């Protein structure tokens, strides 16, 4: 076992780990020894090929399809230098203050989160795309919403030099997306933070952790030689994401009881919906995600967003099979797509536990209320598609595979609630939150409002697992804002010791 002595060890390099590394950069420049341990590789530019299966294997855990225990939902989360910020679409929204208020974490106020979010937007070159760069898939959504009189907003996005490859979810092949792999991690490295890739942390120990560096056929060489490491540090910051952070702490056998560890895991369970137009539209060229509709965020508990996916992802997101499925798939250039995000409550029974080998297992029950939201969202999406001029719509809960535009007035009848059957209706989630939630009480939280684990002054969490409830928006800016808070506390504590 190789021994390493550090001041701060950060586990994970996504939105949380990247933000902590960046905020601690000045400390490193002043001589502190800080390392980020990242499970995945740092891909070379030519390894971003845009090939669906290849990139899913390279950049996601379980290829983006980790199954919940009951097989009812798949979970997508990234791995590699930059974590999930390599594979999101770069949509950069700040959390509505009412959500922070609803989280009800003593000591966490919305104003502070918003101030730190502004800093993230500035760092990441967040802006609106020019009208000329919006493709038909996005314009049709906007125009459909407007015709219905529904609220529709443009997403600010964090790109620089975007060429419109439309491959954001497979890692931008043009290095345009300003994830932590492009902004925070390189900045931290310039100040002396070391990022160690291909390094899997096995467990956290008293003021330290045990990790293994394994050579990878992909990406750059790790900063550390292959082997097993015992790392001692004044502070350990866990930023491995909402699945892996609770799992890591669960298998670490910490010297304190944390009854809420792993509990209150939540997500935005999602559907990918598809409609067919009479002619080819521009959909795969251009940035894939420019608009969202939050008309129903409060009343129906769902958001609608533009999206555009790849052949396999599209095919598996449709209900049905055989000739009708093939006919729809055979004209991908005529497809318009909408992503439904249901806003699900955090419940203690939805949780992360461990399998016999110490790997994460996620229990997630799809409540009736959630399925109601998905049902309403399917009907609302169909209305947008038809208002945008689509010829036919595929609703996975529909009585038949396709609903024609001539039937647009019969959506309540043709998309019955009884058709929303998990398994038949493919449900996936990418915004994973909770499991190490902030709060003040041991019974329902794992950390305080600064991300410090209750009872362990040297251990912190700084990622989406801190969220006490769902964010109700795409979460990365909020993750970075909270991580910035945590880093402030870490810097103060390391300075004291």
């Amino acid at each position: 076992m190789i021994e390493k002595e550090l001041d701060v060890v950060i586990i994970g390099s996504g939105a949380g780990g990247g933000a902590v590394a960046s905020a601690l950069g000045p400390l490193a420049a002043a001589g502190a020894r800080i390392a980020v341990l990242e499970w995945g590789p740092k891909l070379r530019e030519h390894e971003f090929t845009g090939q669906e299966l290849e990139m899913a294997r390279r950049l996601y855990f379980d290829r983006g399809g980790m199954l919940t225990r009951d097989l009812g939902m798949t979970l997508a989360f990234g791995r590699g230098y930059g974590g999930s910020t390599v594979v999101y679409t770069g949509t950069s929204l700040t959390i509505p203050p009412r959500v922070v208020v609803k989280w009800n974490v003593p000591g966490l106020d919305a104003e502070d989160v918003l101030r730190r979010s502004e800093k993230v937007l500035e760092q990441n070159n967040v802006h609106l795309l020019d009208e000329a760069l919006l493709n038909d898939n996005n314009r049709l959504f906007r125009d459909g919403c407007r015709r219905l009189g529904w609220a529709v907003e443009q997403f600010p996005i964090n790109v620089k030099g975007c060429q419109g490859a439309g491959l954001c979810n497979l890692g931008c092949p043009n290095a345009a997306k300003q994830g932590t792999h492009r902004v925070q991690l390189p900045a931290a490295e310039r100040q002396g933070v070391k990022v160690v890739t291909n390094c899997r942390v096995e467990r956290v120990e008293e003021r330290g952790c045990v990790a293994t560096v394994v050579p990878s056929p992909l990406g750059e060489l790790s900063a550390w030689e292959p082997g097993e490491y015992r790392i001692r540090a004044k502070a350990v910051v866990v930023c491995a994401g909402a699945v892996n952070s609770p799992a890591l702490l669960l298998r670490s056998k910490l010297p304190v009881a944390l009854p809420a560890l792993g509990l209150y895991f939540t997500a935005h369970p999602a559907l990918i919906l598809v409609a067919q137009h009479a002619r080819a539209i521009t959909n795969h060229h251009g940035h894939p995600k420019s608009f969202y509709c939050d008309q129903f965020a409060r009343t129906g508990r769902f958001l609608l967003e533009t999206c555009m996916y790849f052949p396999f992802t599209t095919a598996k997101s449709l209900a049905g099979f055989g000739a009708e499925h093939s006919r729809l798939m055979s004209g991908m250039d005529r497809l318009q797509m909408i992503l439904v995000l249901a806003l699900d409550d955090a419940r203690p029974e939805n949780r992360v536990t461990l399998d016999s080998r110490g790997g994460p297992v996620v229990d997630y029950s799809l409540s009736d209320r959630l399925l109601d939201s998905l049902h309403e969202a399917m009907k609302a999406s169909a209305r947008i598609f038809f208002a945008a001029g689509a010829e036919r719509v595929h609703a996975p809960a529909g009585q038949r595979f396709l609903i024609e535009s001539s039937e647009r007035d019969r959506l309540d009848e043709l998309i019955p609630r009884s058709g929303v059957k998990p398994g038949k209706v493919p449900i996936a989630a990418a915004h994973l939150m909770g499991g190490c939630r902030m709060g003040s009480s041991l019974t329902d939280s794992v950390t305080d409002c600064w991300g410090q684990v209750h009872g362990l002054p040297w251990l912190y969490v700084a990622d989406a697992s801190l969220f006490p409830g769902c964010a109700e928006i795409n979460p990365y800016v909020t993750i970075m804002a909270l991580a910035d808070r945590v880093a402030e506390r870490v810097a103060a504590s390391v300075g004291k010791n």
Partner: protein
Amino acid sequence: MGVLGQREWDFLFRVSQRIVPEAQRLGPDGRKQFRAIAEEALSERPSVLQRQFRLFLAVVRYAPAARYLAPFDWLDATRQDAVLAWFQDCPLGLVRKGFWGLKSLVYMGYYGRAEVWDSIGYRPDTRGNERLRVVR
């Protein structure tokens, strides 16, 4: 040997042709690719899931005997489709989820191949914005 034996693979490929009819037209290279993709994806899953998948394949194969007095392979295409539709809509959630897993594997094997993309109108371009300007 991979996760699936030859007989299981042959059966999976027969089912695949009902799920994606175009799979019938795959040549030897296409079939080889299809199998390699499916095998690799299966091999990366936990052994419990691999066993569940093999069991589910066996259920799809022999369950039709309860209704048609014949396994899946002996049924005509219409009945095979009816059996698969039953699995998709089954009152038991676990069966529906199993069928979704089966379908997903088939779609991965078929649509995951770059060879098919142009024919279905999927033509990604790293300079997508230039293509947008040309269209306009």
